């Protein structure tokens, strides 16, 4: 991937989590958060005239593209606001309101295994990537794209796989994903999203006064600026897996060779894909054939003994 | 005893130098022939020399595949 130039335009996709029930628990009101977010968007638009913007909003039922809007909303002019900003702000705000008020709650598919307080995050991210793909393909000059997710809801476990797919796709496309988690516990999924794609993961303190400042400081920088300025260091999150059976964090786990689900102890049948296991643990014999050990087979033998030890 | 002469230092490729030497035979404007890429000439002639050189070069270049 080539070096980003100062003149390269960028594309920002803002994903807003407008899950009403989630926000209701938040000390920071959704309105307040949106105000700050809108200012941030304006700041982004002010950076470069060529900058491109897409705003998506998602709740537990649906995911809508707020800007560019489906219908050209007509808003009375406010002469104090810069035209370019006003259009965006008005469309975004009105769109969010309509989604919050649940006027169109019933459209979109009836929720699929997603509880209250969870959001169709993977759908939102997938659509965001589609938009990015379309813009990048359609532009001759290089466009550096990134994502900003304002998340309030909790992770939906059933979204894990799709979310992971999305994250890897983003990684392949060189799309940074910045996460702004408003309240509640850390979202493990989104943390990984930020970590893997090289974005920032922000945890807004409870009352969220400093949210805007933090956004301005960390998430406004485009790829070029991130080359120059130091990013805030994310605390390293460990990628240790949690087993599917007891949700424990495991160092050494057992993985079903069919569906790759992780278990902390031996089981006769994979609880995920109902595969019967032939009762012998596959040692990774490949160790013997490993470059280092090839010259001297002795340690290899030792290895086998060792591993069988740990298994007995 | 040291002599200091006011003038212009010309840096050029050997070919151009030869041309200048040839021009020099008409009217002496070269003060010193330093080496085969440097000449020291009388500033007053600079303009004229440049023009002369340009014309000469121009007359010696031939367009290949000149447009119809």
């Amino acid at each position, binding site marked *: 991937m080539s070096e980003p130039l100062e003149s390269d335009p960028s594309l920002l996709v803002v994903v807003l989590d407008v899950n009403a029930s989630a926000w209701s628990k938040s000390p920071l009101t959704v309105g307040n958060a949106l105000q700050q977010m809108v200012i941030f968007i304006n700041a982004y638009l002010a950076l470069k005239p060529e900058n491109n913007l897409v705003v998506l909003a998602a709740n537990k039922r649906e995911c809508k593209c707020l800007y560019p809007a489906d219908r050209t909303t007509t808003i009375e002019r406010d002469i*104090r606001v*810069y035209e370019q900003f006003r259009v965006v702000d008005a469309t975004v705000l009105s769109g969010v309101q309509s989604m919050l008020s649940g006027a169109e709650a019933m459209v979109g598919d009836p929720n699929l295994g997603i509880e209250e307080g969870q959001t169709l995050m993977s759908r939102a991210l997938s659509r965001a990537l589609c938009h990015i793909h379309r813009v990048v393909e359609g*532009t001759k*000059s290089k466009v550096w794209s990134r994502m900003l997710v304002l998340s309030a809801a909790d992770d939906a476990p059933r979204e894990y796989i799709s979310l992971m797919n999305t994250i890897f796709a983003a990684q392949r496309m060189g799309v940074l994903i910045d996460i702004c988690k408003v309240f509640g516990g850390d979202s493990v999924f989104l943390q990984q999203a930020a970590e893997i794609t090289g974005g920032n993961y922000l945890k807004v303190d409870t009352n969220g006064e400093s949210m805007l400042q933090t956004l301005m400081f960390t998430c406004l920088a485009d790829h070029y*600026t991130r080359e120059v300025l130091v990013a805030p260091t994310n605390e390293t999150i460990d990628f240790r897996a949690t087993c599917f059976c007891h949700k424990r964090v495991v160092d050494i786990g057992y993985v079903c060779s069919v569906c790759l689900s992780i278990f902390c102890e031996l089981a006769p049948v994979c609880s995920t894909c109902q595969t019967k296991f032939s009762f012998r643990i596959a040692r990774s014999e490949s160790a013997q054939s490993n470059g280092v050990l090839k010259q001297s087979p002795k340690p290899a033998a030792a290895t086998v003994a060792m591993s069988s030890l740990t298994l007995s | 005893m040291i002599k200091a002469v*006011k003038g212009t230092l010309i840096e050029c490729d050997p070919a151009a130098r030869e041309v200048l030497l040839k021009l020099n035979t008409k009217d002496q404007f070269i003060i010193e022939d330093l080496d085969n890429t440097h000449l020291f000439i009388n500033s007053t002639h600079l303009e004229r020399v440049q023009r002369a050189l340009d014309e000469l070069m121009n007359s010696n270049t031939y367009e290949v595949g000149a447009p119809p």
Partner: protein
Amino acid sequence: MATQMGSEEEFKSTIAEYLESLPAQFCRRVFSNPAACLAIFRLLSTVGKHLVMSMLYLDSAIKLQDVYQWAKPDHQPLVRSKVHQLRKLQILTEERGNVSLSPVFREQLRNALTGGGDFSSFGIPFTGAVSGRVSKKWLASYANDRWEAILHFMVGHSADAEPPSESVRGILRMSRLMEDSAEGMKITNSGFQFLLQDPSSQVWTVLLQYLRLAEMQEMDVVEVLNFMFQLVSLQLGRPYSTEALTRNQQKMLAELCSFGLLYQDSVGAPQFYPTHLITSLSSGSASHSAPLSTSGSAATGRSAIPAASKGELAKPSDQGFIILETNCRVYAYTQSALQIAILNLFVHLVNRFPNFITGALTRDSVRRALSRGITADQIITFLTTHAHPQMQGRTPVLPITVTDQIRLWEQERNRLRPTAAYFYKDFGQKAEYERMFKYAQDIGVILWASNEKRQLVVTRQGHAKIAELVKSQRAAAAAAAAAAK
């Protein structure tokens, strides 16, 4: 593209320099207008912008050192220079090692982002009845006609069109783009270079000149500046009311109209329209927005965002129309007499068809351009930025053979590199030569030297110093001799 960007940057920087030159209280007054703050902010470099944004919502001042710490180690110098620039622009104020945004600027930029503050800053929309004929398209054609008329006049093809107004010619004259000569005004070398720039750079030059003019006429510069920035931030195709404007601004309005940057139905009409020439300043150079406009419409599927709507407004010449072959042949799809005139500066035109001309870059044609002070790079840049979409795809856009040839032609014109100098010869003994050689070397004025011939060529400035040295030595020697007697 990059070089073209470069040229634009250069003009922006010049206006930035102009701002730097303003005294502090002037700046404060300029900053008192959100539109101005926004426009100035957009003139900054990317890193500069980011620094400003990072501090925008910091209410307390922070240590300068901390700001430097934001940069990665190998980029420290860059950031330092940016900070320095911001301080010269009076945007950043420092006391006792702590820096903060200038309060006025911070407040007004916040206003610009949030809305609020000074009402008239983004122009007062005209609410009265407006003639229906003024559409974006119409404005575009109007502006292009006006602008090209001026350029025509510069190229001297304005036989058919009437010469532009006195104020325009005044500015052209002042900016040395044209000069008076026996037969009317004729274009200067800088004028030719001006022609080869992209429109937005040209507009910047004109505006800058206008500022200088305003200074000469003792107009209030801040007033002019604010108005200028306000115009830049106006919305294309909307009528704006003139009532709140001061006399100077009214005057300026009229003159900018004659440049085609603005439009008024009639002189003194209650409303005016900005044209894309001036609004595009705030939204980047046309050549940049062109590719993005397609992406915009692609991303949105409709021209909801400004970037998309600029696409069709950009005049045809902005979408590139020149095809250059490796055999130096040039094919240009254009009707505009202006474009043809400009091409005629360095292309040997052969055929002309209704919508299309053919020609070739010949040695003579290029030399003609070079002799007018146009540089090879300018020619190449122009061809690159106006290359036909068919060519834009490939890299490099222009065939290398041709670009190299152009550069060669430029080189062969200056085979002599003359430098005014002094020539020393006939040194007495070696020591003397070496002493002087050493001295000249220390002060770094040696152009040429030969140890065996004991000859030395130094620059004019060098000569003065050396002369002193020699004198002092002579004096010393004489004194010594006298003492010896």
